């Protein structure tokens, strides 16, 4: 199962984009933010990252908690999760950057400017104000700042997660 999930990371999104669009248009969800949120609720890369963390988690600690009368879910929420915070922080940084920077799917799924994400919005500067470079520059700077702030804030975790995932 895990291998299957991770293998999906190798399927190019462009292969699945046409049917994915059809799924959402059948459900009447195109041009809503839901169409943007649902497919990215879980990512194969994220699962891979967290799996490699959980596998390195000492089993003895889990067993000790079980013996002390903790339920299975209790073990997860009270013992494992607090220790997993750094890994989750790394995943949060990666997920934020990916979602913020995505252009392809928002362009496909969204038609009305009211529901555009930042990147899709940025591209509208291009057509309408071909020569309005100051506006484009301002837009670029403004949309880059949040990503830069998150990255600088979580840089260490981000780099650790990247390199850790490769070694794992």
């Amino acid at each position, binding site marked *: 199962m895990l291998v299957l999930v991770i293998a*999906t990371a190798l399927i*190019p999104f462009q292969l699945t*984009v046409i049917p994915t669009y*059809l799924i959402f248009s059948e459900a009447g969800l195109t041009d809503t933010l839901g169409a943007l949120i649902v497919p990215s609720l879980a990512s*194969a890369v994220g699962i891979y990252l967290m799996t490699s963390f959980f596998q390195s988690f000492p089993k003895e600690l889990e067993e000790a908690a079980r013996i002390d009368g903790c339920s299975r879910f209790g073990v997860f929420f009270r013992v494992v999760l607090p220790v997993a915070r750094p890994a989750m922080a790394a995943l949060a940084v990666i997920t934020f950057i990916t979602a913020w*920077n995505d*252009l392809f799917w928002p362009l496909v799924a969204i038609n009305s400017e009211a529901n555009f994400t930042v990147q899709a919005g940025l591209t509208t500067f291009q057509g309408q104000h071909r020569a309005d470079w100051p506006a484009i520059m301002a837009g670029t700077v403004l949309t*880059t700042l949040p990503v830069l702030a998150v*990255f600088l804030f979580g840089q260490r975790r981000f780099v650790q997660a990247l390199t850790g995932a*490769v070694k794992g």
Partner: protein
Amino acid sequence: MSSTALSAARAGHRQPRDRRRLGDNVAGWSFAGPASLVILGFSLVPMAWALALSFTDSDLMTPGTNVGLANYRALLDDDVFLQAVTNTGLLLVLYIPASLITGLLVAVLLNRKVRGIGFYRTCFLVPYIVSATATGLLMGYIFDRDFGLMNGLFVQLGLPVQGLLSDPSQAMLVLTAIFFWTRFGFAVVIYLAAIQEISKEVLEAAAIDGASSWATFRHVIVPSVRPMTIFLTVWGVIDALQFFDLVMTTTKGGPANATVTIVYYVWQLAFTFNTAGYGAAVAYVLFAGTLALIVTGLLIARRRGATG
């Protein structure tokens, strides 16, 4: 004791463990289930669907009719498709070696105790995290033929003005360079982490044996970062084959289809030309190509690893 009683006793003995395993399974699936469902639902299901679509003339609005292999046959005579394959191939051939070599060299340079080293490392990663849209817009400005900074520089240096993104013979090269600039920081970070793990003893031993710094690089560093090289190659192939955002925000495939990549072509076919069935066929060819490239690459890497 009769045999039935024995097996009943055994079964009774086994029961608690079975129940615990069942409990573990239920807990496990309730954790892993929802995410797996989302991922498989948005990958395997659409994948099968795309295969079905590629045999139809669907236009996304009305259910298409079955046209058999006509889409795949049409590919062979499609000049834009051939152009897209050539463009994507050029990107792969230039980008992968360039990012590996530059990435490793920069990583070696950064792997020393210099003041403010963290700052330099950050600098190399920043282009990687800035969105391709922002990069594309800015680069479109820099590489503009008429008022871009690049041609301004050429004029200052007394060089002729270049067509850059407006010149069919240069546009794809310029895009490749931009793509390289945004991506090679990733290779730097991965290589740097690997180099830092090489044990000091090995490097000292090399130094004591009188190895020059080139020999150390060639015979100690390059072999020890081999797993990273393989990873970065696979990653780079996937990344480069999905080259879309920069095309969209700079040239939109032009001039004269000079920068149409396979992915961009799929998007055009499905969402602007209303030929989703044909688009799905192109996407499938891309997928088969990716898979073939990666599998042969890994096989070659493994064979070399076994003999060398």
